[in-house]
């Protein structure tokens, strides 16, 4: 998470601090010292963090925009101690958080995911150290793939996650105990450049994994704790520099619905035949959900008149192409019938029946005789359904095409 350091540079910061037996310090000196400590820590242990520095008194000024160059950040300034009292003070504003009106534009809490640390001056060095421990300790872990392992540092630090504040109020943290499952913490005290030189030449599993993931275009699933997973992949930037990246899924048994339950993922060697196909042309994913979503199942919605009109038009269009379109005609007719019955919209059934009867009278002389039969049959069935009597208005019952035979001189016409 990028850091914004906001420092108080108001006059109150020049007040002296009494430290026994030393020359006089002002509060701002203490603050500067504390922040220098913080920046130094980040420059060595938290190199990838972006930090910006803003100073304020009655106005504010962005001193240093987001940077990773901690030398530029190690400039002057300072934070304060006085929170103020009364209306508009920090204490008052936070306490009345829930009763805020539109006109009160106090910005806290921020409407986006964020953390706010407020350091008040006392012993700032101690506070800086606390803050470092709290927010800026590097995250060391061990990446394991069977017996292949590598010590890694994860940046940005994965933050604890609360899945459900009520059922499970304890935040989930990544397992750092180094069991066979996933990651573990190590005491990696090697540092300095000479060590880096040697380290570059020692084969490292991360580099192997990264290379193969990149070449194969694959991702690896990584387990971070019980019911917490993520994925590893090679990410390249525009300058063709690539690195191994880990994305965390939300903790839970089924973080990505199209993969199914994570615990149910097993080795392909256990399957009867390779689900990826002999030529790598298949995939067992994505899993299909049991129920289709509304946009995939042709639901009927008549809230806007246009929805209803479109459905009626479809029937009409097919009605004019009878008997070729008999199947679609009845399909659309039954779809409308079902929805009308569910919505208790029986007047519509009657209306459409009238319409079909009119169509029957409008048939041109060249029309196939079957068209007239099907139209009057459909109209009659709709009229029956519109009475709402259970015999004709059963939801699961469909209107079926009238069985006609025009093949010969059959006398069995209806």
């Amino acid at each position, binding site marked *: 998470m990028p850091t914004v350091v906001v420092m108080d540079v108001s006059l109150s910061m020049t007040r002296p601090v009494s430290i026994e037996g030393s020359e006089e310090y002002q509060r701002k000196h203490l603050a500067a010292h504390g922040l220098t400590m913080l920046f130094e820590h980040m420059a060595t242990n938290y190199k990838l963090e*972006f930090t910006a520095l803003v100073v304020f008194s009655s106005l504010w000024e962005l001193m240093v925009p987001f940077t990773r160059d901690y030398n530029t950040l190690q400039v002057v300034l300072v934070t304060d101690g006085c929170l103020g009292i009364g209306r508009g003070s920090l204490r008052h504003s936070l306490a009345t958080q829930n009763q805020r009106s539109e006109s009160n534009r106090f910005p806290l809490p921020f*409407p*986006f995911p964020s953390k706010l640390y407020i350091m008040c001056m006392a012993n700032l060095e101690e506070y800086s150290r606390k803050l470092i421990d709290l927010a800026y300790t590097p995250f060391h872990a061990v990446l394991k793939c069977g*017996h*292949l392992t590598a*010590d890694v540092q994860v940046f940005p630090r994965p933050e604890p996650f609360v899945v*459900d504040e009520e*059922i499970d109020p304890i935040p989930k943290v990544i397992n750092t105990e180094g069991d066979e*499952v996933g990651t573990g913490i190590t005491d990696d005290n090697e540092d300095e450049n000479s060590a880096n030189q040697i380290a*570059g*030449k*020692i*084969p*490292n599993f991360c*580099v192997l994994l990264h*290379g*193969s*993931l990149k070449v*194969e275009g694959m991702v690896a*699933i990584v*387990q971070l704790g019980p019911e917490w997973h993520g994925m590893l992949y090679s*990410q390249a*930037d525009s300058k063709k520099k690539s*690195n191994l*990246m880990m*994305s965390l899924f939300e903790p839970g048994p089924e973080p990505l*619905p199209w993969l199914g*339950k994570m*615990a*149910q*993922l*097993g*080795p*392909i*060697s256990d*399957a009867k035949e390779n*689900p*990826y196909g002999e030529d790598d042309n298949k995939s067992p994913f994505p*899993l*299909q*959900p049991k*129920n*289709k*979503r*509304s*946009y995939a199942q042709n639901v009927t919605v*008549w809230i806007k*008149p*246009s*929805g209803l009109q*479109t459905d009626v038009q479809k029937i*009409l269009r097919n009605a004019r192409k009878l008997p070729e379109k008999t199947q679609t005609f009845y399909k659309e007719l039954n779809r409308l019938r079902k929805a009308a019955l*569910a*919505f*208790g*919209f029986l007047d*519509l059934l009657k*209306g459409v029946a009238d*319409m079909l009867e*009119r169509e029957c009278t409008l048939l041109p002389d060249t029309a196939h005789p079957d068209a007239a039969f099907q139209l009057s049959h459909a109209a009659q069935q709709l009229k029956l359904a519109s009475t709402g009597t259970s015999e004709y208005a059963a939801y699961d019952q469909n209107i079926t095409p009238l069985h006609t035979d025009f093949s010969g001189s059959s006398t069995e016409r209806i």
Partner: protein
Amino acid sequence: MKIFSESHKTVFVVDHCPYMAESCRQHVEFDMLVKNRTQGIIPLAPISKSLWTCSVESSMEYCRIMYDIFPFKKLVNFIVSDSGAHVLNSWTQEDQNLQELMAALAAVGPPNPRADPECCSILHGLVAAVETLCKITEYQHEARTLLMENAERVGNRGRIICITNAKSDSHVRMLEDCVQETIHEHNKLAANSDHLMQIQKCELVLIHTYPVGEDSLVSDRSKKELSPVLTSEVHSVRAGRHLATKLNILVQQHFDLASTTITNIPMKEEQHANTSANYDVELLHHKDAHVDFLKSGDSHLGGGSREGPFKETITLKWCTPRTNNIELHYCTGAYRISPVDVNSRPSSCLTNFLLNGRSVLLEQPRKSGSKVISHMLSSHGGEIFLHVLSSSRSILEDPPSISEGCGGRVTDYRITDFGEFMRENRLTPFLDPRYKIDGSLEVPLERAKDQLEKHTRYWPMIISQTTIFNMQAVVPLASVIVKESLTEEDVLNCQKTIYNLVDMERKNDPLPISTVGTRGKGPKRDEQYRIMWNELETLVRAHINNSEKHQRVLECLMACRSKPPEEEERKKRGRKREDKEDKSEKAVKDYEQEKSWQDSERLKGILERGKEDLAEAEIIKDSPDSPEPPNKKPLVEMDETPQVEKSKGPVSLLSLWSNRINTANSRKHQEFAGRLNSVNNRAELYQHLKEENGMETPENGKASRQ
């Protein structure tokens, strides 16, 4: 986030009393005549929906959006009230879909306008609603079972959405009092029951609906706490599309939804297929998909305040689809969507496009500056998701290259081999439960980890660390030995592989031993074979505990591999043939060039290494003449040095080590019967197999690798 918040359980109570059969007095033209046929025909009179039809279709729309975006864990119970309560479905997940509800509603049918209004009341439904809220859902049950002694953490909250036609404000008050009292009573009952739960919180949403054009007899009232358990709000809404709009707003409020409008969708015109116009489609989704807009301070985009009007939508521009997966690297979330106007042509065109497997990138409309892609629409398994792509400055900006880190300067990783390893270890879903022999449930994921453990017991990471994995001839053995159990055929194949190697050794075939880091010609041929045999033994030994058949492979290997004394003899012979050797050494070089080894740079490779693990130590590439690398820590306890090669001038660390291993190994197994009975250290073994083997052309070395 809370799983068991008010939105876990929603009860719809829809009035089915005679007055609901009344017309909403909003007409629908359904007989739209096509132009060229209109002459002389009067269109059929428009029809209008009843209050009941409006209520039902609006509530179905509420459910449709909810099910689209939350297919699980958000449940609806539908109740219809007239002279009694008709509960149309249950809390079970199977009952949670539109088809079930539609079928049940069709069975109920429209209200009967001729029924006795005195017998009918919405109260029956409200009482049933409270009753049903006390019933435990399968999710609540599961959570309670899982939490054991903390079962009380599982909350029981719910929402009652009641659509009715009330007489007056005091009528509304009466309904509220009734719900309040019923909750009180049922909570008492639930307290003494195992399968019921007390209601902790109930949100009553009373919607009074009336025909368009009439005056409302009931006034709106925002949410008010009637008791610690019950809050209530009253909405007075005209029927028809007004009611539908109200429920659309409510579903967004209740489930934290937000709206995105995709604009500029190019679509072919229905009438003129060769022209295309641009269309807009509005989608609903969880509001977290807009969180980045809040962050970047674009509050005009962010939909304003939380309680603000829900009419607001964020507009994003369609970008012509590309098939670049790079964008997904910046994906920070995927949210299910539901189109607001699901059946409109633009909506279904967009959704079908996505369901067919294509993706659409969405761009923030900006007056100036560069194009910012902030979202992507794509489907997975028949479900469409709005993917959030990080568009602001990324913390991942300017990341270091992996080549700058640990192991970054090693250039001969077995990249292709590990790719093959990954493909063999791919995952697939096992949906049916499997059981172990002891009857316990087998977790497929644990099986996968188990397999990873087996497959990595001996897996050198770099080409110069291994000989056997660079030899095609070893593949038949190496690919099966990692298995949990072997078939007789597998064992036979392993044995054949070993005999094949013996054969190669006898014929003095060259081996792909790495010459990296060595000066001069590298190890002598017989030493190369010793390195190879040692490595092969390490591999097989790593698996001997898998099964008795693995054991048999090792036995075969131990019996066949060249033995130090014999080697000594051959070494002497070998020195006499040094000229010959030189020639074949050249052959090795040529052969090495032919091979497409993964990394041509590997020769630049490793000059010194700080640490060397055991596997590596066994196959150190140093020849007896090469100087000791400066950083090397001695891994061998010198006092255990075997006496064998004492007199042979400079002894390499390798020979010391391999001899030590050999001595140690020889103690671990029974001496092979053949060797005990051998004459001059020679014994004819497995004669029949050897004959068989002799028929085949032995493969020497690894011919080609992908």
